[in-house]
């Protein structure tokens, strides 16, 4: 600047360029600063650290670029809202009434939830949910009508509250299993996505496939002398679940549990009522002679009896006197350590309210070696695209002062996008890289519009001429940006999983372009063309 005021005036003049430089610097900081390195303190994570670990940059990589397994599936079930149920009707009655009208469901599959607060959600009306496959919303509607309960609406998916519970339970399961860096989220309204870095498909499937409902039941005779099973406690009754360990100097493994204070009395009473805590303890011969055994404790997981064992007098005595409830501890034994670990995970995470529909799933497994190859290959593809763009732009303008800043500006957009990804910890995958390339594409297009507009009608002689031409160009750029954003926004919300990143980063790129980089390019071009320095 020729006039007084020197640098300050020129900074003011070129504030858009200054802003761009600042944002690029901030992005570089976000990318490389060790202070912003992604945290690895996932509960249950072990010495192997975060799987999405990144090396030099703070970028976190998604499954395709870091390796691991992703399973997407909806939850099994349908539900009805606004069900009109006469006051005072027992839950069991409703469940049986509804199940009676459904060919493929039993009372156990029907859940009733009255209005109230559930977690963060307030439920206004009564919800009836059927958590089994092969029941449609229409069938539920018919069954409700038959049972005399009118429903406002029925839906071919589980209710939001059930979904939230399932996500919470799945998250805990993934964490408890020591699969570090695993994530569970919902996309497109009803699809659950479970993503676990560095795990193969069998490990993830085994973990999420079953509901993981663990029950501790009493196997005993009722008043008629027939053997029945009575649940004495489940995961909801527990306050603490210990680690699975090998039994010292013996066979099998065990999990120590502590019963919650408000359940202890009830649990104790059930032990007494079912005869488990009878005088002298019990002898269990469930496996050899189930029809003539004394009362047994059964450890049941997803309906399958894992183990049966007796109660010794050391436990039975304080239960009879009522002392046990003051220090309500209990040991569950299993045949081997891995079963004990599974039981411990399931007890800690609780049971899934319903199963994931793995018949209707999508699964992706990427080996770490392949993900490394994807990383380099997609980088090469991206760089090749940038070179192609540069080639065309140079061929067209044949002026370094026009084309050079164009390429630099477009690349700075990618740096900003990568910085944003690192800052918010968005995992980079192939679709995000496609988004980066798209950002360069739309970016350069707009820079071409600016360049052509500014250089039209002869030389740019004054600031005013430049400003007016730049403003004209900007209308087109704004309009083009708006159409791109509108066109891609469906992808940002749809459950077409992998494409979300593409949409988000293309939209982000367009916004950064319109608000930051393209105005800055205008400034650069102006100072180069008006001959002022």
């Amino acid at each position, binding site marked *: 600047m020729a006039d007084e005021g020197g640098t300050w005036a020129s900074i003011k003049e070129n504030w858009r360029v200054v802003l761009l430089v600042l944002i690029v610097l901030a992005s570089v900081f976000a990318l490389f600063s060790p202070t912003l390195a992604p945290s690895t303190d996932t509960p249950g994570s072990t010495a192997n650290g975060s799987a999405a670990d990144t090396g030099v940059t703070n970028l976190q990589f998604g499954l395709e670029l870091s390796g691991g397994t992703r399973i997407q599936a909806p939850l099994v079930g349908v539900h009805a809202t606004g069900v009109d149920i006469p006051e005072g009707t027992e839950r069991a009655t409703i469940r049986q009434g509804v199940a009676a009208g459904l060919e493929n469901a039993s009372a156990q599959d029907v859940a009733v939830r009255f209005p109230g607060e559930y977690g963060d959600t307030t439920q206004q009306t009564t919800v009836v949910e059927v958590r089994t496959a092969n029941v449609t919303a229409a069938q539920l509607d018919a069954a409700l009508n038959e049972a005399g309960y009118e429903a406002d609406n029925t839906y071919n998916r589980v209710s939001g509250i059930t979904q939230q519970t399932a996500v919470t339970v799945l998250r805990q399961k993934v964490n408890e299993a020591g699969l570090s860096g695993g994530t569970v989220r919902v996309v497109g309204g009803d699809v659950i996505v479970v993503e676990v870095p560095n795990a193969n498909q069998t490990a993830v499937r085994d973990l999420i496939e079953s509901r993981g409902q663990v029950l501790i039941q009493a196997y005993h005779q009722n008043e008629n002398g027939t053997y029945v099973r009575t649940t004495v406690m489940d995961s909801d009754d527990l306050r603490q679940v210990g680690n699975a360990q090998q039994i010292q100097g013996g066979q099998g493994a065990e999990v120590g549990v502590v019963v919650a204070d408000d359940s202890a009395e009830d649990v104790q009473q059930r032990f007494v009522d079912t005869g488990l805590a009878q005088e002298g303890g019990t002898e269990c011969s469930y496996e050899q002679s189930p029809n003539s055994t004394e009362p047994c404790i059964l450890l049941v997981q997803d309906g399958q009896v894992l183990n049966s064992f007796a109660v010794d007098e050391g436990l039975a005595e304080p239960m009879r006197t009522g002392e046990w409830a003051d220090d309500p501890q209990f040991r569950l034994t299993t045949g081997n350590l891995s079963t004990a670990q599974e039981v411990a995970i399931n007890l800690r995470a609780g049971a899934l309210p319903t199963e994931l529909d793995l018949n209707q799933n999508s699964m992706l497994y990427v080996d770490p070696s392949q993900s490394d190859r994807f990383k380099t290959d*997609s980088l090469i593809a991206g760089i090749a*695209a940038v070179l192609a763009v540069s080639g065309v732009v140079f061929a067209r303008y044949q002026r370094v002062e026009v084309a050079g800043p164009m390429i630099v500006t477009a690349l700075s957009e990618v740096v900003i996008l990568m910085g944003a990804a690192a800052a918010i910890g968005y995992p980079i995958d192939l679709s995000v890289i*496609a988004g980066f*390339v798209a950002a360069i594409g739309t970016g350069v297009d707009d820079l071409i519009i600016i360049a052509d507009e500014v250089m039209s009608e002869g030389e740019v002689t004054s600031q005013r001429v430049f400003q007016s031409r730049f403003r004209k160009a900007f209308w087109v750029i704004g309009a083009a940006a708006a159409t791109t954003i509108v066109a891609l926004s469906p992808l940002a919300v749809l459950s077409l999983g992998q494409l979300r990143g593409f949409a988000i980063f293309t939209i982000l790129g367009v916004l950064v372009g319109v608000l930051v980089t393209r105005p800055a390019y205008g400034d650069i071009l102006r100072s180069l063309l008006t001959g002022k320095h």
Partner: protein
Amino acid sequence: MPGVDLPFGLPEVDYTEYSNRQLVAVPLAVLAVALLIVGGVWLTTGAPVDLGMEFTGGTEMRLQIDGENPQQRIQQAFTAEPAGVQPVAGSDVYIVSFGTGANSEQLETQAENAGFGVESIDSTSPSFGSEAQIQAIGGVAIAFAGMSVLVFAMFRTFVPSIAVVVSAFSDVVVPLALMNVLGIQLTLGSVAALLMIIGYSVDSDILLNNHVLRRQGSFYESAYRAMETGITMTLTSIAAMVVMTVVATAFGIGLLSSIGLILVFGLTTDLLNTYMLNMSLLRWWKFEGVNR
């Protein structure tokens, strides 16, 4: 007539030599053929284009295979018949795909038993895929409707707006028809590309409309200037996408190559539509339509 040089030494076109009817005939004929193809396929198969694995269900594996006769060993390793085997350039990796009948866990075991290194498995069940199909079609429809509303809101004049919308429609339909003709399956990447076309290809149309509607100077002057810029833009994008497609195809990165390929189709179609269809509609509107 101002002698505007088109970029890259393209031969100058003198629009005054052709009537609107002549100019419109070509893109409309292309659109009609494309509609026939897409419509015909839709009627016979129930989908506008051959759907890929992500929509119909199936499994795709990347297998690293050392040693002799990899193709033959692939055929022997699996009880299910592979639907396709494609080598990845510069490596001993093969992309093997299976239809809906195959179970991904079983395939993994069989691959491991055969001594192949399992690099990745991507598997979708049919019902999950059909859900994705509905979402994809819905997404494209919503995006298109949104774009149309926006264009009408920006120009507030019927003929120029409808010209953009028709061009964009053709930009989406012609690539779909090309996919049918060339036997390219619809993937998630191509859906992304179709949406991208809706947002991206209208750029040059908007530019053209803007120059003709809002600038001083004769119709031809404005139009040629818009053309100069617009063609540079579109050719730059096409160049980038061609290169990305070639590289990504060689490396077997399906997502990037299908995005690139469909964008190349769409942008090429857009050159035709913008500078023949949109241009002549604008000319008609400017010289004849307005006076009515």
